[in-house]
């Protein structure tokens, strides 16, 4: 037996208490291979040891939910025998080290989570956070991450239909790359990971195994420090063409009855996939590593088990189905190997060169992983910022121009034009609106009339100021974005990006954010069906802003029923739906124009959100609304400007702010609001009033300028500010 010193234990990211538990489970000391297996299985990334306690409190059920968290991705019923399968996942640390490959393999990983379940991936999204634009590394990271996401998604042929991107100095040393995939499956052909049937063959397919990313899973759970440059593991390189083959081959095999269970090899590769499959099915596994296709020579058992080589899957087949399966993988020119079989021992026995390299009980490893109730302190509430304490601009339209050309509000065209957002031919609404909208195709390619709306949202500065209110806001903004295109919001996936959970303030942010998500999901019948946690996003003790990114999916019974943000032309009335109070705390106006990052974020009234959104959705269905945009960052005037640019149509704003200070009226970020363009303002306003929802006409569309009390701003000038920042910034490097 190898001598396992305390240093080796520590290098594997295990505490001495955790090591004692290993000794207790095994009744002996582990060998190095076994220790490696424990270390990845019990890493924060795989075991959710700090977050489990809190994640359990999220609402995960509803009549629409077919499968909630716990599987590779969440599944929601969309009628007509179809289901939507989706999840979001982070690849933060790898993307900081090698932005192109880190982001690319992030996309590859989340695609596999979705097609593993029998779904054809039909859309990708990405939620990105970078450091300050002034930080010397930012440009390089933006350029690599965007190219990597595009390089992978474009090649596999899945459209990237939206996402988000923010800059803030808290991400200088820890960028966030969260990728989401949405797929469509036939409801009666969904595949799960629970392995059953002692004797059934265990099959490995896809790329060969190399020494890629060994210890990636433990790295993802470790805080960066000065010498992480030295500890760099072998970086995983993505091979999107192989992934494309894997998608097609798996879907082809899934049309037969050969598969009992299937699981992609994600973080911690062969180890975590086989443990999870066995544990879920209550079986044992025997694997022979000599049969695993290897890319490199002399790989050890430790390396085989911990490798994170990409584009690999593990399957349990029905006995006798090997030949059917092999023929399909041969057709797609992918490696295929029977590497073991299921047993009834409840143990994982790993053989290599005729010896037993590891012999571990499955359930204690998979289920008895540590669960911590980490100490936490509630985040202090911040004072409200009153509008009279915030200076009004000399010229609101000039302030608008500044805002529209600021890093967080400018156009993301530079990003999304590098993504193929049209492949598959089903894109109804391209990036640039509130949500991406695609027409639903069946997994066999057949066209339907349904549409799916997809969005990702979170406003980290709100979450930092008040994690609970901020997380609530993230959920309602996602819900609003789906509503604004006319879709019925179905469910969410959450990607919780936080700092070091061993610090009580950070843990307090996490606990607060979970509470906010819970409250919002409950109130909106908007359950969490999948998610991912990324902790330890800190460098030298500086944590990122708490960033619970929400990915959400909504359904349009008819894809032709969606509306966009573009003003449709001259002669429409602009109606503001929802109540405006002029909340300037944590607003972009406060930060970008007044130079202050302060105060409480805008409060969320969940009942009002629900009532207002339901009203908007019905009005869209009733064809009362020609264009719609929810109000978020930058408030009313920014929303109007975005609608005007999208439709190349100007507008005249009326002076109707009443008692609210003009700058608070124009730039306040009160929640629960939508700006709509309608033919008949009277009809919409009275319908709103009947539903108890504030609504007022605030202007009219027309011309090529925005006009506000006699002063005006040409759309061309606004457009160059809005479109100019990103390409200008990237070219300046």
């Amino acid at each position, binding site marked *: 037996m190898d001598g396992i010193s305390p240093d080796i234990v520590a290098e594997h990211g295990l505490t001495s208490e955790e090591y004692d538990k290993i000794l207790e489970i095994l009744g002996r000391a582990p060998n190095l291979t076994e220790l490696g297996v424990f270390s990845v299985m019990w890493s924060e990334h795989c075991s959710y040891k700090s977050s489990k306690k809190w994640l359990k409190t999220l609402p995960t059920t509803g009549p629409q939910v077919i499968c909630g968290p716990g599987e590779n991705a969440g599944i929601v019923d969309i009628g007509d025998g179809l289901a939507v399968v989706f999840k979001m996942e982070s690849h933060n640390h790898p993307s900081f080290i090698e932005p192109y490959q880190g982001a690319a393999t992030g996309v590859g990983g989340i695609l596999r989570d979705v097609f593993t379940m029998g779904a054809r991936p039909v859309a990708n999204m990405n939620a990105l956070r970078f450091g300050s634009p002034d930080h010397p590394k930012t440009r390089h990271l933006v350029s690599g991450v965007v*190219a990597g996401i595009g390089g992978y998604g474009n090649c596999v042929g899945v459209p990237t239909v939206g996402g988000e991107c923010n800059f803030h100095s808290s991400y200088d040393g820890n960028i966030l790359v969260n990728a989401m995939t949405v797929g469509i499956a036939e409801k009666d052909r969904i595949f799960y990971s629970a392995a059953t049937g002692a004797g059934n063959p265990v099959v490995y397919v896809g790329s060969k195994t190399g020494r890629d990313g060994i210890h990636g899973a433990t790295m993802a759970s470790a805080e960066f420090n000065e010498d992480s440059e030295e500890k760099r593991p072998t970086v995983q390189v993505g091979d999107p063409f192989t992934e494309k083959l894997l998608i097609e081959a798996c879907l082809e095999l899934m049309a037969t009855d050969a598969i009992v269970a299937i699981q992609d090899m994600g973080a911690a590769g062969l180890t975590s996939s086989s443990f999870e499959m066995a544990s879920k099915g209550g079986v044992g596994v025997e694997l022979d590593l000599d049969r695993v296709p290897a890319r490199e020579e002399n790989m050890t058992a430790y390396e085989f088990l911990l490798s994170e080589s990409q584009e690999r899957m593990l399957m349990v087949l029905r006995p006798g189905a090997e030949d059917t399966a092999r023929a399909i993988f041969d057709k797609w020119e992918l490696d295929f190997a029977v590497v073991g079989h299921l047993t009834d021992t409840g143990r994982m026995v790993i053989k290599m060169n005729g010896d037993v390299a590891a012999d571990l009980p499955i359930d204690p490893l998979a289920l008895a992983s540590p669960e911590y109730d980490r100490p936490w302190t509630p985040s202090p509430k911040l004072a409200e910022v009153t509008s009279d304490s915030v200076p009004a601009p000399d010229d609101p339209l000039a302030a608008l121009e500044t805002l529209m050309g600021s890093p967080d509000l400018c156009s993301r065209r530079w990003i999304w034009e590098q993504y193929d957002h049209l*492949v598959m031919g089903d894109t109804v609404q391209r990036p640039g609106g509130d949500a991406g909208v695609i027409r639903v195709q069946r997994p066999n390619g057949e066209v339907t009339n349904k549409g799916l709306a997809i969005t990702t949202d979170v406003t980290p500065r709100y979450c930092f100021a008040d994690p609970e209110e901020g997380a609530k806001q993230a959920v309602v903004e996602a819900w609003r974005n789906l509503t604004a295109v006319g879709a019925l919001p179905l469910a969410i996936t959450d990607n919780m990006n936080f700092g070091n959970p061993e610090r009580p303030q950070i843990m307090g942010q996490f606990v607060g954010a979970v509470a906010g998500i819970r409250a919002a999901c409950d109130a909106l019948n908007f359950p969490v069906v999948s998610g991912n946690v990324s902790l330890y996003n800190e460098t030298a003790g500086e944590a990122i802003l708490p960033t619970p990114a929400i990915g959400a999916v909504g359904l349009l019974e008819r894809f032709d029923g969606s509306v966009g943000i573009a003003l449709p032309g001259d002669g429409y009335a602009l109606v503001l739906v929802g109540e405006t109070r002029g909340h300037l705390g944590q607003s972009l106006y406060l930060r970008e124009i007044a130079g202050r990052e302060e105060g409480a974020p805008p409060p969320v009234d969940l009942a009002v959100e629900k009532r207002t959104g339901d009203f908007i959705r019905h009005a869209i269905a009733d064809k009362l609304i020609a264009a719609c945009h929810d109000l978020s960052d930058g408030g009313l005037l920014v929303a109007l400007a975005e609608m005007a640019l999208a439709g190349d149509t100007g507008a005249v704003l009326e002076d109707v702010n009443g008692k609210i200070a003009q700058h608070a009226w124009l730039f306040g970020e009160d929640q629960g609001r939508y700006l709509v363009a309608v033919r008949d303002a009277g009809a919409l306003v009275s319908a709103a009033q009947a539903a108890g929802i504030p609504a007022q006409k605030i202007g009219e569309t027309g011309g090529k300028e925005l006009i506000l009390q006699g002063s005006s701003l040409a759309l061309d000038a606004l457009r160059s500010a809005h479109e100019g920042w990103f390409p200008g910034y990237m070219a300046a490097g």
Partner: protein
Amino acid sequence: MTAAIIVFPGSNRERDMRLALEASFGRAPVMVWHRETALPDVDLIVVPGGFSYGDYLRSGAMAAHSPIMREVKARAEAGVHVLGVCNGFQVLCETGLLPGALMRNASLKFICRDVHLRVERADTAFTGGYQKGDVMRVPVAHHDGNYFADTATLDRLEGEGQVAVRYCAPDGAITDAANPNGSQRSIAGVYNDRFNVLGMMPHPEDATHALLGGLGGKPLFDGMAGALKELKGAAA
């Protein structure tokens, strides 16, 4: 009329193409797997967009040597109409059916957006749905669409009227700003010297539905359907 679409393992716009062809031709095209060595009797062969074999070496390089492309080449030489879009254009150039090469975009970035194309001639079997000088709005989605040929070849292509479509401004003006990839002389698509083979970078198939990218590419498919039917009638 029947069309065939060649499917490589990394093709990813074959479905988009199938839907567009089906809508204009009134029947579904035959999908032909890259390992096939024979083609059914068809009036049109389409090589669709995607990343044929991953395209890591050079776009279309490996596909040009696939068994099925030998057959496509023979058919083209026998006068069958062949359309290559995006990766299909790259494959046709690599195969030698079309002159020139497609290099990395001048920006070095993948680019996906709508462009405008000026139809340089409307008297071919591909462009009968347009008038000469018409401007169509269709998307591009490529990394290697920067058309290159040496000056002599370019002069010859222009002289023989083999330039099919050029990137232009919405009003038809040929400007550098309207060229998304730096292609020589704003070329977006070319014919072979017999005008039965057309290769183009933009995706007309993704602009054949009013709500899914608009109708800018629809006349191309309708025009092909009409012209090929006529040819078939004349031959019969």
